Each structure stands twice: as C-alpha cells, then as structure tokens.
C-alpha cells in the first residue's frame, strides 16, 4: 500500500503569506526498508551489545561455579558443553568478535581515520568478513 505525497496549504504566522507544505508519507516498515551495509553494521553493533549485556550475569554464574569446587568446575564445564551451552557459546563468541571489530572501527573513526564513505564501506565489509570468520571457526571447533 502506498500513500501519495499531498499538498497542504497553510498561512505563514509572521507575514500571512500562503505556504505550501508537502506532506510526505512516513513509511517505516523495517521489513521492507532496504538497509544499506553501513546501516547493518550499525544496528548489529547495538544488537550484539544488548545480547552481551543479557549474557553477563550468566557468565558470572558459570565463573563462580567453576571456581567453587572441583565438582563445581565439572558442572560448569557440563553447562558449556551440552548442545544449548555450545550454541550460546558460539553466539557469544560471534557477538564479542563482531562487537569488538565494529567497536575498533568506531574508535578509528573517532580519530578521523577512515571516515570517508568509500573507506567506511570497505572497513564495514571487513568487520563483517572477519567476525563472520571468527563465528564460523567457533562453530566449527565446538560442533565439528
């Protein structure tokens, strides 16, 4: 469904002249908006960051368990070793890698390195490639 831009006539409050305001439709269906590569790099940085926040307490729990006693260590290893534990580990390693590389890119841009659009696109692609590679390697070593 598409809405056409419509013209609305109003009067200027200062000199009372006629103003034409063009009302454009706001279309924000995220599933139909085409997000460019740089947009994906940005939104994924946020998604992985929020995900890592949620994993932090679980990580501390496993750390505490692993240090509590020899049995606790075995329990902690079992948590990380069963299929859901391995799947979450791969997701966490992938998110960490992605967030770190995308973050390094941000830090570089903070000191005005690689800010031009062409170089920003190249570094964005590298962030995707390298973190994707880390994720595949993690999946391979945990499930292979």
């Amino acid at each position, binding site marked *: 469904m598409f809405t056409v831009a419509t013209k609305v006539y109003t009067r200027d409050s200062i000199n009372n002249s006629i103003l034409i305001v063009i009302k454009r439709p706001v279309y924000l269906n995220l599933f139909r908006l085409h997000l460019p590569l740089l947009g994906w790099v940005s939104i994924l940085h*946020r998604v992985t*960051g*929020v995900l*890592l*926040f949620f994993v*932090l*307490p679980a990580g*501390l729990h496993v*750390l*505490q368990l*692993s*240090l509590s*006693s*020899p049995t606790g*260590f*075995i329990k902690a290893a079992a948590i990380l070793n069963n299929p859901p534990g391995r799947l979450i580990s791969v997701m966490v390693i992938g998110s960490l890698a992605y967030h*770190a590389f995308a*973050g*390094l890119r941000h*830090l570089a841009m*903070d000191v005005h390195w690689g800010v031009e659009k062409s170089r920003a696109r190249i570094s964005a692609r590298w962030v995707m490639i390298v973190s994707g590679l880390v994720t595949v390697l993690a999946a391979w070593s945990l499930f292979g």
Partner: protein
Amino acid sequence: MKRPVTGSHSGTGWWLAQRVSAVVILLAGGVLLAAYWVAAPFDFFTWHSAFQATWMKLLVWLLVASLCIHAWVGLRDVLMDYVKPLVLRLALNVLVTLVLVMSVVWVSMILWSLHG
C-alpha cells in the same frame, strides 16, 4: 533553554567513558585471552590457582567493571532511542543500573572470597 528529560546526565563525559572502557576491555580481554592460551587451565586446580594471583584478580575485576560501565552507556543510548514513554525508560534504566552494579559487587565477591 529547557532540556529534555533523558534519564541520566548527558554529554561528552559518558561518551568518553564509553571509549575509555572500550579500550580497557580490549586490552584486559586481550591479555586474559593470551594468558588462557598459554596456561591452558583445563582442570580445576590449574584454573583455580590461576585466579589466586593478585594481578589476575585485578585484571578480571578491571575487565568486568569496564564492561559494566560500557554496557551502562550503551544500554542508556539504546533505551533513549527506542523506549519513548518516560516512566518506562527510567524504570528500565534503573533496572539496568541495578543489574550492572550487582554484577560488579558479584565479581568482587567471586574473586576475593577464593580460598587458597
């Protein structure tokens, strides 16, 4: 000029805190990862004794504390962008703050309650 209520202090201070904590996380995380590769603590006793060293405790604590500062700023940004109702945003902000402060307390307890 009336400032909009955002739920926390805004400005370059937090921006800088996020950058500094990011660098600390990268450095501390890198050192710990390297130490893990070298020591390969795959049984309880090597794992447990690795955490006895003071530099190790300080490094892990520094990593988690920086993670919490970093996550606090990041979550605040995300909440400010996507959660429009003020009360809900403030409530979530408080919740996030509690979780992160508790995390720092928790990791301190884990590290400094270890028996040799």
